């Protein structure tokens, strides 16, 4: 049971306040989705909570230990981070990118232990990449690449996964495929915090919704309680109708 807790995080730059006194938590067995308009500070929050960005005030603890006390590798053994932009500097093979997921365990392409091999194979299978594993990544489609990065995160065998828009720019089928993979990961004991823009996707998969606007958390709870028409209007400025689990967006307010 792993718990990542951010308390009173604030991130201040010279010009603006990116995060204002934000407190959230992520833990095993739970799929939390972070929702908010562009510029709400979602990416900043993810960077701060994974220890990549030092907050101006407040702190993050991983299993009650402060996260900046951990070395980058120790931290990466507990938390897998999928950033929003996922460039690949070189035309690497699928299997080599997935192998990078074992980096935090001190493994590299030429020196893989049996544990590494098992983890990599499991991740490739889970993400349905077995036939693609020796293909070069620059020959893959968007959906396939998204699966490769997911596989990389799973290969790390971390307790927590933090993903920033993992399904952006994917077609609906692949969006659901990726979210299924993450759901599966959570069902097997992992904990995930995922940023999504698609409300329906969020409503379908989330155990908990975290709403953000202008650097602050406006709501944090299960979809039944937090997914309301008022919440949609306040956060996104849109008129919405909610029928069972379906969210229909009628148009923008003003």
């Amino acid at each position: 049971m792993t718990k990542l807790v951010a308390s009173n995080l604030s991130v201040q730059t010279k010009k603006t306040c990116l995060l204002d006194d934000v407190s959230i938590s992520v833990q095993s067995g739970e799929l939390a989705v972070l929702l908010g308009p562009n510029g709400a500070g979602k990416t900043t929050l993810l960077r701060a909570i994974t220890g990549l960005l030092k907050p101006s005030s407040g702190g993050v603890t991983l299993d009650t230990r402060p996260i900046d006390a951990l070395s980058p590798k120790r931290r990466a053994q507990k938390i897998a981070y999928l950033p929003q932009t996922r460039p690949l500097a070189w035309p690497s093979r699928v299997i080599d990118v997935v192998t990078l997921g074992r980096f935090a365990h001190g493994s590299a392409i030429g020196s893989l232990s049996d544990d590494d091999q098992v983890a990599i194979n499991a991740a490739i299978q889970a993400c349905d990449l077995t036939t693609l594993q020796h293909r070069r990544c620059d020959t893959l489609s968007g959906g396939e690449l998204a699966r490769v990065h997911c596989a990389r995160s799973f290969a790390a065998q971390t307790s927590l996964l933090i993903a920033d828009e993992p399904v952006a720019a994917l077609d609906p089928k692949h969006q659901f495929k990726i979210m299924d993979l993450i759901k599966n990961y959570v069902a097997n004991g992992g904990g995930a915090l995922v940023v999504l823009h698609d409300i329906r996707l969020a409503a379908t998969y989330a155990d908990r919704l975290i709403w953000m606007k202008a650097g602050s958390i406006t709501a944090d709870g299960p979809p039944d309680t937090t997914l309301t028409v008022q919440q949609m209007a306040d956060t996104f400025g849109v008129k919405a109708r909610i029928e069972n689990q379906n969210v229909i967006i009628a148009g923008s307010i003003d």
Partner: protein
Amino acid sequence: MTLGRHLTTFLLIASLLTLFMACLLGATPLGPDRVVQTLFGAGTPGDTVVIWQIRMPRALAAYAVGAALGLSGAALQGLLRNPLAEPGVLGVTASAALGATFALYYGLVSFSAWVLPVAAISGALIATIIIAIAAIKVQSVITLILIGVGLSSFSAALMSLLMNLAPNPFALSDMLNWMLGSVANRSLDDLYFAGPFLAIGFVILLATRDGLSALTLGEEGASGIGLDLRRQRIFVIIGTGLLTGAAVSIAGAIGFIGIIVPHIIRPMVRHDPARSLLPSALLAGIGLVLADILVRTVPSTSELKLGVVMALIGAPAFVWIAMRGRTLDD
């Protein structure tokens, strides 16, 4: 990964063969049998001096310099995530040459023979630090290369100025060698003083190579999988500074070998920057020894310079790589 291991073994054998070939060339005609005998310690005293004090040191100098520059190029390309990065292009070799010439022609070397490699390394480190800082602040690698061009030009101009003003009468006549590179008359002494720095630079870059693989995912992705980005940058800076500075203190400024060789090697190691380091070093060493053999066999009144051979092959290759464009974004 068996391909990688086979490649390294092949390159090691090729290295030994190339060094042997270099020992066959010289003013005194020595047949291969005599060379082999001498290499195994069973040669005549005269042969032993010729092989072990004259020919082998020159070949080893070319090999060490090539390997150092090839390794630096591969590491810089891994760090900056661009196939055009290399100590010559980024102005590191020119700055190292500036440091070396300043120390040599203003008499600082009379304090100790260690001053020469240290001065060259200082020049190299200053340039590498400037490039690394610029790499953080600047998005496009084109800008980085332009900064390198600026550094190169400035160092070369300052070097010419200093050599013109230097009290030492040999400064000007040596200038061509410093700017274009040569391993003429290199002895084991030269290797001895540059050796420790070459070794340390080698070890640093090879020990931290896995971080370069992580950087395939970009800086944020690499940090996400547990790379300490600052540490990686510092080690690459120090490693390439040591290697480039030591190489320049032996042979002057030689460019382009750090671009050509890693570019050839990378597809053979599935484009993994970490796996490309050692084979790049070995192939670059072989390449520079072959270039030196060419330089010694081409009939010309004054000896052709190593840097000229490298530029004749490397500059067109540089343009070709640049024109192909980046296949993947960053």
